[in-house]
């Protein structure tokens, strides 16, 4: 049990994932929610890299996938911050519950 293996990393990533989900559910600040998304993406990355390391056979597909996730996350953050600013410009707050103009 002490010597780490794949399961350790997977459990760690699972906790990280749940934390991310919790943050997304509880935070009202749009940027806070963005941080939750980043947590989830990171847990996915940890999984990718861990599988890549412990997978039988050569190659490094997992790392490549993680690399793309990082790139996409960065792009997503840029767009999300821009959206936050637009929301702030229009509503004068970034409380996501206030952005309910499309609410039925």
């Amino acid at each position, binding site marked *: 049990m002490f010597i780490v293996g794949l399961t350790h990393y997977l459990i760690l990533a699972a906790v990280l994932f749940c934390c991310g989900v919790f943050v997304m559910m509880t935070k009202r600040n*749009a940027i806070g929610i963005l941080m939750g998304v980043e947590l989830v993406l990171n847990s996915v990355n940890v999984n990718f890299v861990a599988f890549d390391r412990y997978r039988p056979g050569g190659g490094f597909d997992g790392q490549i996938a993680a690399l793309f996730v990082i790139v996409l996350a960065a792009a997503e953050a840029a767009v999300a911050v821009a959206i936050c600013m637009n929301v702030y410009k229009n509503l004068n707050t970034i409380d996501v519950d206030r952005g309910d103009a499309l609410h039925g």
Partner: protein
Amino acid sequence: MKTLMRYDKTILAGLLLAAMACCSASAVAQDYPDPKERPERVVEGEAVPQDAYRSEVTPVVESVLFYIFGGALLLSAVGLCICRDVVRMATCLFFTLGSAAVLYLLLGAFFLGAIQLIVYAGGTLILLVFGVMLTNKSPWVRFDCKPAEMIAAAGVAIVLFFGLATMLTTTEWAQSTGEARSTTVAQFGKALLTTYLVPFEVASVMLLVVMIAAAYMARQE
């Protein structure tokens, strides 16, 4: 907590020393042969021999480092859940990302670890903090949700975790027992320009689109 706060410097210095010690012992270590024997320039099509970069990390060291940085990762992730102040949340996120980067290094993904540090910790996080500064009315305005919501969310998260954990522990993964494979940047670059050329190009086009989109959305009215 107040007692803890009073000894912050001691604690932080301890953390600092621990981090340095860990780094010094950590996986980043490679012996390298005499530079004259190394290829002066990585020519395309020529793979660097795998044993040129031999990690010295033994399973014991790897485990110790995993527990340290995995613990730091979890602590900061939980801190992210607890903190109410956005900048503190960003600080927690910074430690989460940093610990994740060290885990990548442990797993032999050096390039990924470095990229994680430079893109996430150095770029995305600054962007987030910047967004916080631009959109905060004042540091003293906070958004809270009701305790009931908090409990419900925690319940959902815990149930989710147990489901995932059960699934993870019961599944038989096809595992290799082999040593960590270090990946060189050259291998990475070659793979990106051959096998993964299409996703690479798609990603670059997407980045361009994102850049234009972000600039458009935050433009001057």
